[in-house]
């Protein structure tokens, strides 16, 4: 996935003079995960910029650049360190178009690695997506595989609105597949049914998608599970979800983020609002716990397949 994202950045920067990349350690070393490797060599240190250590500055400067007419792609080194930029994202980027009567949009893609599974403890593991989904004016994207990562990032950079682009670092190197060369996009409006099924719908994104699939395989063929990869978290592809749940009548949402007020809660509520009479079992959430992200016990924290399987069985049998 690292290579696919690098590829998307390179294609954007070649095709569009307005695209610039900035962040801590993104230039000379090409990022702590090597996602921006080689970009500074190709595009120079004016377009691939190592910044001082200030996330609010990175995002705030990007907003100004976007107002000027550039297409900044700031990187936050770990999603866990996005909070110093929270004010600029929430108070400024999200509201700028609206509050200026449409005079200034803020086309900007904030890329950030997120999620657990790399022994990162409290501050190199978090999944803060729901905080941004709650804020009107932001789009939130999360690819699960290299092909989508490239196509979604190319779409995001061409989008007119600020996008939070969460990269699941647990599958940065794990998910190998053939990524098409050249320019292509994956729209920011479409979820993908990655495994069709008839009995239970599982909704997941990022690294947890693979756990959902593994759990689905585990309970097959007794329970025939449909797995949906959301890809774009917000605005969510409600049609794909509702169509599926109306068919299966059962839904399990899986996410790494803490359970309470996570995006799972929103998905459950949407399903209730739009498909209540089709529900044959209560919607279920399998999620990270409401604790800070632990180090030693991270595999007990994460909603891995071993926790999804019983949820699938119980829901199917309800």
């Amino acid at each position, binding site marked *: 996935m690292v290579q696919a994202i690098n590829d998307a950045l390179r294609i954007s920067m070649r095709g569009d003079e307005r695209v610039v990349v900035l962040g801590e350690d993104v230039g000379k070393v090409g990022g702590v995960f090597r996602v921006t490797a080689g970009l500074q060599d190709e595009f120079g240190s004016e377009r691939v910029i190592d910044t001082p250590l*200030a996330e609010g500055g990175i995002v*705030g400067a990007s907003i100004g650049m*976007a107002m000027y007419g550039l297409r900044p792609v700031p990187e936050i080194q770990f999603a866990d360190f996005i909070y*110093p930029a929270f004010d*600029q994202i929430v108070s400024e980027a999200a509201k700028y178009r609206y*509050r200026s009567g449409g005079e200034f949009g803020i086309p900007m893609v904030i890329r950030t690695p997120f999620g657990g599974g790399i022994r990162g403890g409290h501050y190199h593991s978090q999944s803060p997506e729901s905080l941004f989904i709650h804020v009107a004016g932001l789009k939130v994207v999360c690819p699960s595989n290299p092909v989508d990562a490239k196509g979604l990032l190319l779409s995001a950079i061409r989008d007119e*609105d600020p996008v939070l682009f969460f990269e699941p670092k647990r599958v940065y190197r794990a998910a190998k597949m053939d990524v098409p060369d050249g320019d292509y996009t994956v729209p920011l409006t479409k979820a993908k049914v990655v495994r069709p099924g008839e009995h239970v719908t599982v909704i997941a994104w990022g690294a947890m998608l693979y756990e959902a699939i593994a759990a689905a395989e585990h309970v097959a063929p007794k329970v025939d599970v449909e797995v949906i990869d959301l890809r774009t978290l917000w605005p969510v592809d409600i049609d794909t979800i509702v169509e599926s749940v109306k068919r299966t009548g059962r839904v399990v949402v899986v996410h790494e983020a803490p359970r309470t007020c996570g995006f799972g809660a929103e998905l459950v509520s949407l399903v209730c609002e739009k498909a209540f009479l089709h529900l044959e079992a209560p919607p279920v959430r399998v999620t990270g716990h409401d604790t800070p992200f632990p180090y030693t016990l991270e595999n007990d924290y994460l909603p891995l397949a071993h926790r999804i399987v019983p949820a699938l069985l119980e829901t199917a049998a309800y």
Partner: protein
Amino acid sequence: MIRYELPPSRNIEHPDIETVLGADGRADPHLDPKLDTALVVRIYEAMLRTRVLDDRMLALQRQGRVSFHVGCRGEEAAIIAAAAALRAEDWIFPCYRELGALLWRGFPLQRYVDNMFGNADDVVQGRQMPDHVTGRQWQYASVSSPIGTQIMHAVGFGWAAKLKKEKLATAVFFGDGATSTPDFHTGLNFAGVYKTPTVFLCRNNRWAISVPSDKQTASASFAAKGAAYGVRSVRVDGNDALATYRAVREAVERSEQGPTLIELVTYRLGGHSTSDDPKAYRLQEEVDLQIKGDPLTRLRRHLELLGAWSELQERRLVGQLDAEIKACVEIAEKKPAPALRSMFDGVYAERPWHLDEQYETSKRGPRPEKE
């Protein structure tokens, strides 16, 4: 803690503050920017216009006709003379007191008054509080309430222009209180490192609501903070339109070499906003002393010396402005509220499904679409 500083015009006591206009209205010949008298008259007229406008908006607020106003009484030189010193290509990133700078650039008064009423013709469609305007055509960014956030935008915008080899400067206004925010720190730091063409205009009006500027920082001055970032800085008499003009012009002209931090030493003669009663935290004596340094009085004295302004002109202009404002208010007050639909538009470039749904639900409610 409340200090009885002498008005800035008596700067013999503040040798570190750059001043051009003496108490007698004469310009220091060494520092005088030697502007066309016609331009100085225009600056004075604009300052007076802002003053009259503030008075009328305050009155409207007291009558309950607008809900809120934040003015700039006492800071007109720091705002208008700074705007006048900018070049056409330069951009302004305002705090919330710099309406005068926007009007200076030609923003129509009617649009401003529409904003005060948040009506359907308001440039921001009644989405923000009064005085929170935007003027892209006038190269004026969006006013927002959070203190300091615009500083980083000015830096990023100027930096982008520099990357694109376009020559322009960004001028960003903020208060003394704003120097305590993260954005001040980050903005100055980034500007210093990347040598962005940014002019930081710190209106030190001595107060951040009820907090006096000497409780805001233990720094010797706000200008002194520039050195922490390798940013050139100057401390200027912000009640002196000529000194302000001179410093801002110089900063803008050398902005290709990098940023400048300008501390404009001035004083907030009025309340923080219409929601504030300054009597609760400062003595009238302090204000009375500062009134002697009123930037309008000082510039008028100068113009009178030059024979370029008179009591008659003053009265005539005030009358004219009054009539103009009154007419705008009458029109604005009659305009309808923005359409319900406008509440759901502009959150994104295109309205997504969930806002379509929320709009539809709203329409169905007992309060029908007002269109």
